[in-house]
């Protein structure tokens, strides 16, 4: 079946595939039947204004909010309505909006929870060292409770923690939210590094320009529906996108 918006068909290489996905909060329909796919190895972004339904889409994928209609396929299998804890075991990890670190646990304990689904102690220790190498500030503060970290440090912890589950697909919900420009830069660099290491990523962002610059493809969401989709570079130069999401840079 051919996708009318993206023009691409749901191929065998799709790691994640949403079709006609609808998610509602009681009577409020927040996601109104969207089609979206992320192929293996791709970095895809989903951009849109506040309240467009981006977070709700992720919640639907992860089983945090019941799916009203439509299906979610991951790695060829229908995972619609599966609970989050099962998905992590199959390599689908998510960094939620607002980071969601365990404030009362230490950084080490937070990371240990990231590796909760794994049993290979030695390899976990090596991977934690790699995370510390990526984010040296976490290493310095390893025995501090996560609640004492700055917003940027918490974001690094949340990403490091998600990576420790050895995900094949990583869902990131506004990783740059509320961060200073330098930290935003660091976050995007990390996203690219992780992507280059072969992890498939679906990135949700308010920062449309940066998101489109690092992504292969992009989707634009408005009031619960996908309004534009395609190659990231194309979207970056699309007048409608420039006007709506890139502000003055349209001029």
């Amino acid at each position, binding site marked *: 079946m051919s996708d009318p918006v993206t023009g691409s068909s749901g191929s065998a290489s799709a790691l994640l595939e949403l079709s006609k996905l609808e998610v509602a909060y009681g009577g409020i329909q927040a996601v109104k039947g969207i089609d979206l796919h992320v192929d293996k190895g791709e970095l895809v972004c989903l951009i849109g204004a506040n309240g467009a339904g981006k977070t709700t889409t992720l919640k639907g994928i992860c089983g*945090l909010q019941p799916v009203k209609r439509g299906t979610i396929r991951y790695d060829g299998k229908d995972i619609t309505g599966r609970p989050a*804890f099962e998905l*992590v075991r199959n390599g689908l990890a998510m960094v*939620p909006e607002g980071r*969601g670190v365990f404030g009362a*646990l230490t950084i080490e*304990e937070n990371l*240990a*929870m990231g590796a*909760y689904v794994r049993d290979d102690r030695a390899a976990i220790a090596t991977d934690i060292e790699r995370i510390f190498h990526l984010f040296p500030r976490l290493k310095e503060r390893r025995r501090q409770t996560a609640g004492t970290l700055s917003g940027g440090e918490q974001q690094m912890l949340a990403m490091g923690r998600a990576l420790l589950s050895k995900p094949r697909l990583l869902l990131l919900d506004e990783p740059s939210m509320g961060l200073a420009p330098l930290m935003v830069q660091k976050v995007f660099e990390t996203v690219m590094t992780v992507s280059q290491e072969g992890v498939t990523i679906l990135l949700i962002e308010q920062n449309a320009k940066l998101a489109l610059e690092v992504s292969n493809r992009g989707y634009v969401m408005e009031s619960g529906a996908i309004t534009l989709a395609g190659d990231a570079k194309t979207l970056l130069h699309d007048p409608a996108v420039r006007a709506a999401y890139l502000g003055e840079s349209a001029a």
Partner: protein
Amino acid sequence: MPTGQQEECLDIFLQQMINGLTLGSVYAVVALGYTMVYGIIQLINFAHGEVVMIGAMVAFSVINALVGAHTGLPPLAIVMTGVLVAIPVCMAVGYTLERVAYRPLRSAPRLAPLITAIGLSIVLQNLAMIIWSRNPMPFPQIITVTPYHVTGNTDGATITNVQIAIIVASVLMMGGLLGLVYRTKLGIAMRATSQNQQIAGLMGIDINTVISLTFVIGAGLGAVAGVMVGTYYGIAQYQMGFLLGLKAFSAAVLGGIGNLAGAMLGGLLLGVIEALGAGYVGDLTNLCQIASWSDAIATRCASDPNLTLFGSNYQDVFAFLVLIAVLIFRPSGLLGERVGDRA
């Protein structure tokens, strides 16, 4: 040099402390069951006292049966067998309570699971009455209680082998629990779940399993506590869980509900407060001290020099005085924080 009278006072004080710490360590172990469950799902499991009672009843049934069968087993082995049967039974009860009664209400308003808990407590009490009858079950005379003097004074304060066993077992269980919660992956997962169930799920933690395990561990500790308190008083009865549960709950609130160290501290403190209170309430409220104020009192004191307003039977009041005082002056408990916005 202390005079004879001072020495006697000190001995009485020491004795109350020993008795208080013994009961206090039982309260602490029971309080852990309340606080663990509260910590993870903010539920006050009022049926926990009954789980403790069931532990005592099951263990006593086994112990009495073994004694009756003249197996020739040493007393310690008999008691241990009782405990080892009681633990899984209580764990199964704890698991069932959570699975059948509390889990379906997890997203219901606060009041629903609370009332359910109180209802379950009544149901379990009645079940126990049907199974074991109203009659108290005695602890068979198989253990010789040996007192050891703690001071040089030969008629001074003593600690018995049973008291030592209770304190040692409690300390071991508390240490084991702290080790579990702060040093193991399961323990970290429990604390993660208590902070944010959704995020814990995103880590791959099956929160239902973690919550079940919390109930099961608390119930297992409760089983041992039930046997200890039953052995200490030499009796087990279907209603014993009610007062014990309320006291342990008070201890948990005193320490700061949801806080493990708080439950331990609260339990020990409550035991000591209760023992000292019971020990001295008679002296402090001895009306003969004020005999000169009133002829009526003086006349009665002439025949009964121990005329007191409150006797040591007021022991049980102290737990609730403490509970009320904590709720008024420090609602979050000694080591607790933010109970206000959780409750």
